[in-house]
């Protein structure tokens, strides 16, 4: 009892009303906010379920096992027919989205870097051309760019009978781009082994050359050697087996060219449009990144005797990358999301196929939920990869 009377001064000061304690108040406000959000969520879900029941709409994802009944024009990776399930149709659409996004990201990056660097060129013509490119493509909605390629360029190509003939039995007409498909005979597996051996060899050479340059300062033509290894080994392997490789050439059928491989105009226009459109933004990001590297860096590099090319490649760009990568990530995400514009030109991406399924089954809530989950996952995965890449490129202090 007595000990309670002798309360230390410090403890006394903490005995203010709980409501006035900023920490406690913070917790209370946060708890209220969480409750409010949870309440709103519950109200929405509850209301939706009630409405669904009143409209006598079935719910659940069981419908995905049903037979789709429709055909898809382009399914390069999965064997799909109208007897396949809705789930498989969605997979085909998803893979088509992935294909166009992946190809688009690579092309847009290469193109964007070239144009971004071109905008800083000392050559007046190159600089102005790159500026015009950026201003034109950056200020046109992506849907129009897609229509430009689809309706303006690819659909005015000649009909199948008047195809433009390109070298190596390749053809171009308004049904797409046709090229011979390789047919591998017995023993062609050795070429695959050769390819792997070539890649491993190239990596080893690069490591050795790097080590040697560190030790002696002597340089080695790594790029050319790698190319020779990667192309040479599979060729050598084929030669040993007596070239067990033939080609399936496209030939004119009743309606169109048959046989060979084919890239449809829908894919081409979507791919080209997304690449050209996003490249304009990437070019600006690259230019900003390079501008963000101190002028002294390149001056110092020139003073050391490096010419313009190596200065850009070895001194400026590696530092610029730290500025470039974060905004580049959002451009990649944009490109992936813009690929859903495919629906306008009939490329069977996830949204186009999902939309058809939605219409056939009436399961709008489920299909829209699948759209959201897939795009969200794709975006999160891209972000994770780019964050990892960013961490790798970040300034490492020694």
């Amino acid at each position, binding site marked *: 009892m007595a000990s309670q009377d002798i309360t230390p001064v410090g403890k006394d000061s903490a005995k203010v009303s709980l409501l006035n304690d900023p920490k406690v108040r913070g917790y209370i406000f946060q708890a209220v906010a969480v409750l409010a959000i949870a309440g709103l969520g519950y109200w929405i879900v509850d209301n939706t379920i009630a409405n669904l029941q009143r*409209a006598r709409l079935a719910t659940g994802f069981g419908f995905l096992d049903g037979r789709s009944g*429709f055909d898809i024009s382009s399914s390069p990776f999965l064997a799909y027919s109208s007897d396949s399930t809705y789930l498989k149709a969605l997979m085909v659409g998803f893979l088509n989205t992935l294909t166009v996004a992946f190809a688009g990201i690579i092309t847009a990056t290469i193109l964007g870097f070239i144009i971004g660097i071109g905008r800083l060129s000392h050559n007046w013509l190159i600089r102005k051309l790159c500026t015009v490119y950026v201003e034109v493509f950056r200020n046109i909605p992506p849907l129009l760019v897609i229509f430009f390629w689809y309706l303006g360029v690819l659909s005015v190509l000649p009909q199948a009978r008047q195809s433009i003939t390109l070298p190596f039995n390749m053809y171009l007409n308004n049904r797409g781009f046709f090229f011979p498909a390789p047919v591998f005979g017995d023993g062609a597996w050795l070429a695959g082994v050769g390819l792997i051996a070539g890649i491993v060899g190239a990596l080893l050479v690069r490591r050795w050359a790097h080590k040697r340059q560190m030790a002696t300062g002597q340089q080695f033509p790594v790029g050319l050697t790698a190319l020779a290894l990667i192309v040479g080994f599979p060729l050598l392997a084929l030669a040993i087996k007596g070239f067990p490789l033939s080609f399936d050439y496209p030939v004119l059928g009743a309606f169109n060219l048959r046989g060979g491989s084919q890239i449809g105009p829908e894919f081409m226009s979507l791919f080209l449009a997304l690449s050209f459109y996003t490249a304009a933004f990437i070019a600006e990001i690259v230019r900003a990144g390079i501008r963000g590297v101190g002028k002294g860096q390149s001056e110092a590099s020139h003073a050391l005797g490096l010419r313009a090319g190596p200065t850009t490649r070895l001194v400026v760009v590696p530092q610029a990358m730290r500025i470039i990568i974060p905004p580049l990530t959002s451009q990649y995400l944009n490109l992936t999301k813009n690929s859903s514009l495919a629906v306008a030109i*009939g490329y069977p991406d996830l949204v186009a196929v999902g939309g058809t399924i939605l219409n056939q*089954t009436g399961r709008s*809530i489920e299909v829209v939920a699948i759209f959201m989950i897939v795009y969200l996952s794709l975006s999160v995965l891209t972000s994770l990869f780019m964050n990892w890449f960013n961490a790798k490129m970040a300034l490492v202090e020694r």
Partner: protein
Amino acid sequence: MGTNLKGQIVMKNLVLKGALAASAFVLLANAASAATLDDVKKKGFLQCGVNTGLPGFASPNDKGEWSGFDVDYCRAVAAAVFGDATKVKFTPLSAKDRLPALQSGEIDVLIRNTTWTLSRDTQGFDFTGVNYYDGQGFMINSKKLSGINSALQLSGASVCVQAGTTTELNLADYFKANKMEYNPVVFEKVEEVNAAYDSGRCDAYTTDQSGLYAYRLALTAPDDHIVLPEIISKEPLGPVVRQGDPQWADIIRWTHYAMLTAEELGITQANVDEVKNGDNPEIKRVLGQEANTKLGTDLGLTNDWVVNIIKAVGNYGEVFEKNLGSGSPLKIARGINAQWSKGGLQYAMPIR
């Protein structure tokens, strides 16, 4: 085993609830509507879902005024409800968006050449009748493909088709059943399908035959194109309403029957006021002139609802001829859409 199963159900429920929450707004708009008729009256106009542009059925002119067979049905419903055919707003819908738009309450009725199928009927929708009996066919450019005069010769062809339609499914079934290959070129909007076919992206165009005749007019060289003789499906087209509102479904259903009955009895836009006061008891009953009649009020409308419909748009035959038949560039024959008494399939239930 039991707990595992329960766990699975809980898991499934969680996923479902998440999905529901995410897209709940689709259905939020619908929160407090059961009696569509009351809602429509309160709004003061009918919101009618129509095609984005199918000459003969629904298409806007350069002033944005809609006309067509389906459009006249929308006007007929507005006339039945309000006595005023102008109290209607049109929502142009792609094939893909039409059913979700009805489900969400964005439109009150869908009159957009929609095929009556079992699965659609059981997915929360009600079809109120068949205002046009159609069938799917193929159109080709006969100048470019001169040797072809049957759909069975289309193996290997690229075929333009609209996404999310029964047409797309019939196409797949037809080629599979006849062991033929084809390459579907699928677009969401009819305008895109038309443009692709016209530019030669596809060898053949498939949709309902009425649609083929309509689109042919819009092609650069209509005379180069022929509609192949095969009809590969039954396409009964009709108005659709949300399930669970029998009164509203009745109004749409009987609007159709009223137009058919009027044709049968010879009631036209021109003579409706005259015959209304004549002495044919059947006509008087249909037009609500019988003493103490409750036919219209029992439907939730006024007793002169049929008069309003016929004054606004005319009877079935008039609407058909004006939009699709001899009075239109399409020149489609009545065919199976003739009255039952003339060898067709159109048969109105008695209004009494």
